[in-house]
């Protein structure tokens, strides 16, 4: 396939503006390690919101969620909105408390935070290792996901992996979280603009071109049952999807570390409000596009049984090349903004563990970032399917950190040895269970597999919570 000139043009403009913004951000960067990983807790509301939104919402939205809605109907909206509601709830309660605690402790990583609040030397390296184990596949999946988008622009697989890795790395090393947050905010707006353009194009151009009207499409979707709960969305499947995601805000390091960055109370609160507005609009846009795609399938305009991740690429091919290229670049932006935040979070966690927080060196941080990006690029380019598939389970593997974080932030004194050890045991058990089933069934099957009638995510969460609460009760009894 030849290179698409429109794509190269839009992509070059995207890179030029992003790189200029990243370079400009150096004026805010103080050059110390805390500033590199958390912006020194000095970000205003707009940047704190922008980086949170762009980090949270990956290419999954425009590609995966459109496809999931097309394939399974409105149940996908329930799953994604449950995520948003719980995230806002956590950010308003536990997140706020974490932000307040971070002002006192100057954390650079969530693993460092957990190690300190539990007073455990073992906990920090264990959590750091889990981050590396769980996040590397997720990172590789982001880079691999970009291949299909770069293919739209006519680039080869190798070119797409190399280009993605360079952008991800370059926008990190310029000024750490400062360059990441400024480019994230820029990319967040591209994502929203891309989503809106997508919806407007579907409504005003695509539907009329098929000889249908919107009301006709809505009635077709309604008659085919996709506005109700389809067979796919059994209660167990809904649980399997929602449980890992509703705890996303307190388990995934790339978003937890963003709780440390707001410069004051007002900035923190405003950033959460902006994120809620953004998340709601973005989710509704994506789901509506997915439902319309289903309607177009029902009237025979597109195939009914497309693989989920092929729906958006197919619709892109119907677009004017310039608009299609803008859309493709908005998807690249979503993946890049998620990927560089993951790299920074994992490297911060490893560095805090190795060097003990603020004593770390900037050069070491940048070398670590390079190693993480390279590893993910190798996994993505070598098509190590099993490892990329493991990204489906990332949030399940991280689930045991949810009860540990919730309990930890409400502790007002250092816990005793029983709680400390039960914390470690609960994390190891939870991660062990999800990893075991990933090995036995394969990650994709394990995600939806019923174990004693319950989804793997619920089993993982219940096991970890029971051990943690057991430790708490035992320590209470021991204290008496």
């Amino acid at each position, binding site marked *: 396939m030849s290179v698409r000139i429109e794509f190269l043009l839009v992509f070059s403009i995207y890179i030029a503006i992003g790189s200029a913004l990243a370079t400009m951000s150096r004026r805010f960067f103080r050059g110390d390690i805390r500033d590199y990983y958390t912006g020194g807790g000095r970000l205003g509301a707009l940047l704190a919101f922008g980086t949170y939104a762009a980090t949270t919402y990956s290419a999954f939205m425009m590609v995966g969620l459109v496809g999931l809605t097309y394939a399974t109907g409105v149940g996908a909206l329930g799953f994604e*909105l449950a995520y*948003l509601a719980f995230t806002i709830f956590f950010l308003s309660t536990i997140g706020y408390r974490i932000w307040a605690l971070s002002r006192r402790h100057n954390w650079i990583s969530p693993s460092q935070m957990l190690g300190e609040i539990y007073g455990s030397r073992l906990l920090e390296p264990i959590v750091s290792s889990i981050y590396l184990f769980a996040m590397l596949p997720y990172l590789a999946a982001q880079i691999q996901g970009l291949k299909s988008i770069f293919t739209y622009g006519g680039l080869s697989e190798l070119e797409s992996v190399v280009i993605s890795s360079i952008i991800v790395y370059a926008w990190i090393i310029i000024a750490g979280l400062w360059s990441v947050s400024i480019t994230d905010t820029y990319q967040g707006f591209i994502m929203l603009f891309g989503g809106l353009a997508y919806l407007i194009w579907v409504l005003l151009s695509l539907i009329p071109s098929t000889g249908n009207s919107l009301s006709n499409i809505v009635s077709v979707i309604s008659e085919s049952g996709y*506005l109700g709960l389809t067979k796919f969305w059994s209660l167990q499947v809904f649980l399997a999807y929602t449980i890992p995601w509703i705890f996303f805000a307190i388990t995934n390091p790339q978003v937890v570390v963003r709780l440390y960055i707001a410069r004051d109370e007002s900035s923190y*609160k405003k950033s959460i409000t902006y994120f809620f507005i953004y998340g709601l609009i973005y989710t509704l846009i994506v789901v509506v596009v997915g439902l319309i795609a289903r309607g177009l399938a029902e009237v025979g305009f597109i195939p009914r049984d497309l693989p989920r991740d092929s729906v958006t690429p197919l619709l892109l091919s119907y677009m004017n090349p310039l608009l299609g290229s803008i859309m493709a670049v908005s998807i690249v932006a979503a993946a890049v903004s998620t990927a560089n935040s993951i790299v920074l979070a994992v490297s911060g966690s490893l560095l805090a563990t190795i060097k003990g927080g603020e004593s770390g060196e900037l050069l070491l941080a940048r070398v670590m970032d390079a190693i993480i990006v390279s590893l993910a690029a190798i996994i993505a380019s070598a098509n190590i399917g099993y490892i990329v598939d493991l990204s489906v389970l990332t949030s399940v593997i991280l689930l045991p950190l949810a009860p540990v974080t919730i309990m930890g932030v*409400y502790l007002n004194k250092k*816990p005793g040895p029983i709680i400390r050890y039960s914390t470690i045991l609960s994390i190891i058990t939870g991660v062990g269970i999800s990893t075991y089933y990933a090995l036995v069934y394969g990650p994709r099957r394990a995600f939806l597999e019923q174990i004693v009638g319950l989804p793997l995510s619920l089993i993982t969460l219940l096991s970890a919570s029971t051990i943690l609460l057991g430790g708490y009760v035992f320590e209470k009894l021991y204290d008496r």
Partner: protein
Amino acid sequence: MFGDPMKRLQVVILLALIAGFYFIPYTILYNTRGLELFTYWTLLTLATGLLSLLDLKNTSRGG
């Protein structure tokens, strides 16, 4: 052991409540043909988000 037992209890109860509301369609709205389910989940999220933000607005450090 915990900083604020009432706050912790409030968090747990609210978590259960929010979760419960998201599963209501499995009892009464599972077979809808119109936009009821779409509207229900959207309005529920709007209400949950606004209540959370209201609570956040009234929270100050240490709360």
